[in-house]
């Protein structure tokens, strides 16, 4: 990987902040970036790498910013993108929202961070937990002569500093699974997978040693054991604090947690999932007069569970007018700027079935423009339930001082990229 310089641009292509790391690419080259982007977009050849002569621009877009890395070498693309996303991640942890305003308001910290993140085109310290030890927004307040040396720079455990104290020692464990589903217009499931993560909020004193036990239903793809009735996880990622050697030998997850919020592990299960909320939609379009929409939503999960804040988003033609709705439960609302009807159901018990009918008028002069066929999308959240069946069996917390600590566990299943294609 070699990145000659990093730029943060606004949507007009104006440089908000930049850092020249290597000095082998002219900094003025960045002025070509936006025109190049526009030109490629027009020709339909837009792609995450743009080149002008010998200079390559690798870019990502985040809210109203472009983050661009320039290079004149045939460098490793995936690494550069990972680094740009790392920058986004670090900045977001510092400023909550990463956008034009936050860059301008915090440019001192941004300069400091850019200095630490990379040197001479090579990523250096990119862990935001460590960075937060010595680059703080309080830096704006004056503390002359009292700059402390971050302990983590020399610590054996780089993600946790010593001497943390809490009155009440607690750990909150969130098991969150989001479901991605793509259903074809004829009702067959084209693809489905589960993306899960275990998140921790640690409020523990000292240097505690934690051990997490999961139920046996979950086997890890890494270990390559038998695949009987269990769910095989692919693509398991652990936080760097987890001792992988222990995990490989006896599959216990043991670690010294970082303080505060962190993601302990994430996984993906590529399996056929029954879509938890099944949608049948009939959209009938009578040209020049009206559109009639009938949507049936069915909860295909256990009766004891309840899905909260269910939102069914049904696309309608852009020139539709005078909406009329009838729902068996919940509320339907027309959102003209997004060309859709949003049907909201506050609580949706498993096994139940609900119906929504909508009627729209169409103008007699037809819109000639070709419109895409946007899918119906669904958003929901089901607490106390995981699709994969993963469960936390125990969480042991051991610390020298021997305090008692309480683990709290919460399960949530939510919708990820949940799309059902329509026939219109």
């Amino acid at each position, binding site marked *: 990987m070699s990145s000659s310089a990093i730029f943060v641009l606004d949507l007009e292509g104006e440089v908000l902040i930049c850092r020249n790391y290597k000095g082998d690419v002219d900094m003025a080259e960045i002025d070509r970036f936006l025109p190049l982007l526009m030109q490629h977009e027009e020709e339909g050849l837009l792609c*995450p790498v743009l080149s002008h002569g010998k200079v390559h621009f690798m870019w990502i877009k985040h809210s109203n910013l472009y983050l661009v890395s320039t290079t004149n070498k045939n460098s490793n*693309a995936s690494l550069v993108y990972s680094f740009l996303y790392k920058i986004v991640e670090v900045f977001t942890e510092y400023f909550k929202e990463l956008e034009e305003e936050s860059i301008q308001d915090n440019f001192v910290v941004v300069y400091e961070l850019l200095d630490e993140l990379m040197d001479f085109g090579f990523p250096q310290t990119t862990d935001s937990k460590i960075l937060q030890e010595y680059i703080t927004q309080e830096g704006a307040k004056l503390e002359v002569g009292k*700059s402390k040396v971050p302990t983590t720079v*020399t610590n054996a455990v780089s993600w946790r500093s010593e001497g943390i104290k809490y009155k009440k020692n607690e750990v909150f464990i969130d098991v969150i699974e989001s479901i991605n589903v793509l259903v074809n217009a004829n009702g067959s499931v084209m693809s489905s997978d589960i993306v899960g993560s275990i998140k921790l909020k640690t409020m523990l004193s000292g240097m505690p040693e934690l051990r997490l036990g999961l139920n046996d239903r979950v086997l890890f793809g890494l270990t390559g054991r038998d695949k009987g009735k269990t769910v095989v996880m*692919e693509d398991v990622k652990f936080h760097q604090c987890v001792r992988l050697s222990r995990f490989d030998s006896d599959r216990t997850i043991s670690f010294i947690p970082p303080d505060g919020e962190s993601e302990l592990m994430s996984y*993906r299960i590529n399996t056929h999932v029954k879509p938890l909320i099944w949608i049948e939609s009939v959209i009938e379009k009578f040209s020049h007069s009206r559109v009639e929409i009938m949507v049936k939503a069915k909860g295909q999960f256990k009766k004891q569970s309840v899905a909260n804040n269910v939102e069914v988003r049904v696309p309608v033609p852009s020139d539709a007018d005078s909406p009329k709705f009838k729902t068996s439960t919940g509320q339907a609302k027309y959102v003209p700027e997004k060309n859709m009807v949003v049907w909201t159901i506050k609580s949706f018990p498993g096994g139940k079935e609900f119906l929504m009918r909508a009627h729209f008028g169409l103008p007699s002069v037809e819109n000639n423009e070709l419109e*895409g066929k946007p899918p119906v999308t669904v958003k929901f959240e089901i607490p106390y339930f995981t699709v994969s069946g993963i469960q936390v069996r125990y969480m042991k917390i051991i610390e020298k001082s021997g305090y008692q600590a309480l683990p709290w566990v919460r399960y949530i299943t939510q919708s990820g990229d949940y*799309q059902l294609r329509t026939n219109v």
Partner: protein
Amino acid sequence: MPYLGSEDTVRELRRHLSNPNVQSDPLRYRSSILKVIRAMSQGVDVAGLFSEMVKACATVDIVQKKLVYVFLCSYATLNPELSLLVINTLRKDCQDPNPMVRSLALRNMVNLRLPSLAEYVEQPLSAGLRDRAACVRRVAVLGWAKLHNLQPASEIDAAVVNELYGLLRDPDPVVMVNCLRALEEILKEEGGMAINKPITHHLLNRLGQLDVWGQCEVLRVLQRYRPQSESELFDILSLLDASLVSPHPPVMAATLSLFLVLCPDLPAVSFAALERVRGPLLAACGSASRETRFTALCHIQLLLRSLPGLMGAHYKRFFCGYAEPAYIKQRKMQVLVELVNDDNVAMLLDELRGYCTDVNADTAQAAISAIGRIGRSYSDQCLQILTGLLGLQQEHITSAVVQTMRDLVWVCPQCSDTVCSALEGCEETLQDSQGRQALLWLLAVHGERVRSAPYTLEGFIDGVRGEASPGVKMELLTTTMRLFVCRPAETQDMLGRLLHHCIEEETDMCVRDQALLYYRLLRCGMEETRRVLGGRRSEPSLGVLIGRPAEPISQWASSFNTLEPLKQGAGETETTGRASPQHVTFDLDSDLSDTLNSGAEELDYVCLEERIRCPAVPHCSPQSLQAAMQLVNIQTLAFTAAHASPWRVYLYTHAQQAARSALILGQLLYAGEDEDEDEAGLSEGPSPRGREEEVKVTLKQRPRDEKALQGFLSILTAVLHTLPFNTH
């Protein structure tokens, strides 16, 4: 803040900075410096404040120091003399008890990028290498690389290089990785740092401690290592197995790259590695970041070149989501085309049909041409979809469909009936020149079977005055001529009008010359015209290239995990979908050059004709011929089937000659026994006895470069002689 011109701003800021009252109040002083940096970020030229800022760096406030350094590093090259004043402060800071201050000073000392300061910098850098704080060592190590970069001519002291090698064993992982990076930079001329067995094993053992960036760096450097024995190689490979399925795509890609480089002679191991990364690669294709998804797709395309069956069962993972950007959709379609088989073809085509009506016209066109590609093996299903799409009467869709049909008919002549009946009436929806050219081409080749062809042409000819594209006009000329040959009564009148217009009124030279050429051709008589224009209507033998043979991994291993795959094939669907129908003109050219020397000088650029004795060529399989050619960087374009007569191969190469590259096109022709008589009449070859063992080579190049041609010919001859003589 009221708007101030840049000079006013600078004056204002200078007044603030030099005000003794401000200087004595640390808070106000710092806020003034903040204003300078803010102005600098906004693009105001604040270089004039350099001397004031130099004074400001003598402070104990670390944030202020950082800000001042940012300023100084941006403007130091403009003020080399004044920068000398900074160096003292910086050197003093290098002695500071606080390691953060030391590392900051050391880093910025080199970041000033002033070669004149090198002598002052070396001593603190050497001391930095031995600092007890890791963060200072990290900076010092890279500092040497920067210093070398600044003065590439001057040698870095061997003692320093040794010390850097020693620091590879530093307990801090980042220091170690920075050492690698620095040594690679400093020893660039010698081909990078030395990678011997102890270093390799040391790096591999510490791989686990490194972050993602470090791991990738180590894996990349290790590509230069050559294991001394097979058992050592396998030890290394099994050590790397865990990173091969790493959930971090960059690490996974770097490991695979290392695998491929380490065992070029063990294809089984390489293929096993490819199988192993399938899961992680598919996971990267579903990553939340579109750029990672895009990169993964591009690399999957590379892998498929060698292992076409790798992703067969997972074709559903390449279905496009509604909101994905066009560049991802297009790549996914390219992959889908590769994955088609008997079981999934119905599902796949159904999915692709959905994309044809995408709001983005480019995506729609890519989808249509993808269907066309699949049509080469599953023509009935695809033609049904394509014909259905014509019914939508959408301009860009019709254009893409007609172009796709043209490409399809060229390779699959059995489709021509369906295509001909579908063509009726679609000229009304066609607007763009490429679509119309494709329609004209189809009418030229299959005009006798399209009932309304003369009427369509008449419409075109009536509008020729308003036609802007010379390409369409040239295509129109050819089409009218060819239609005249098969349907003279209906076309004679309009052909006359068209030729008259093009010769008398046309301003474009190419169009006019082509019209003149056809006019002269007609004067040679109908028989001659028919012979010249009756070119081939299809090239079914191109089919060989569609089910192209799996390439050896070495073809692409070196470009794996770089920028290259992202750039390659970006326009692949574009070229197949939109290329103007060169095939017909190409055919005409080569035939015409024989008969009509008077009119066709500029079309004729045959450069070299040679006969090579090579009995093996026509009998060897296309795959082995292609593989042999690729070894010497000759690309084959198309073959006729083995044992066909006459047997041809089209090929091309890029010759690199003194910094400019030249394209050479070539044709190998083996006439076979039965055409001996004809051939002998045209050129004086050697004795007829040896004829059947000779291959005629025709080379074309423009501008002509005699040396390059001769060089190419000798290489080609050498390759042809190495071919195995196998008679199936």
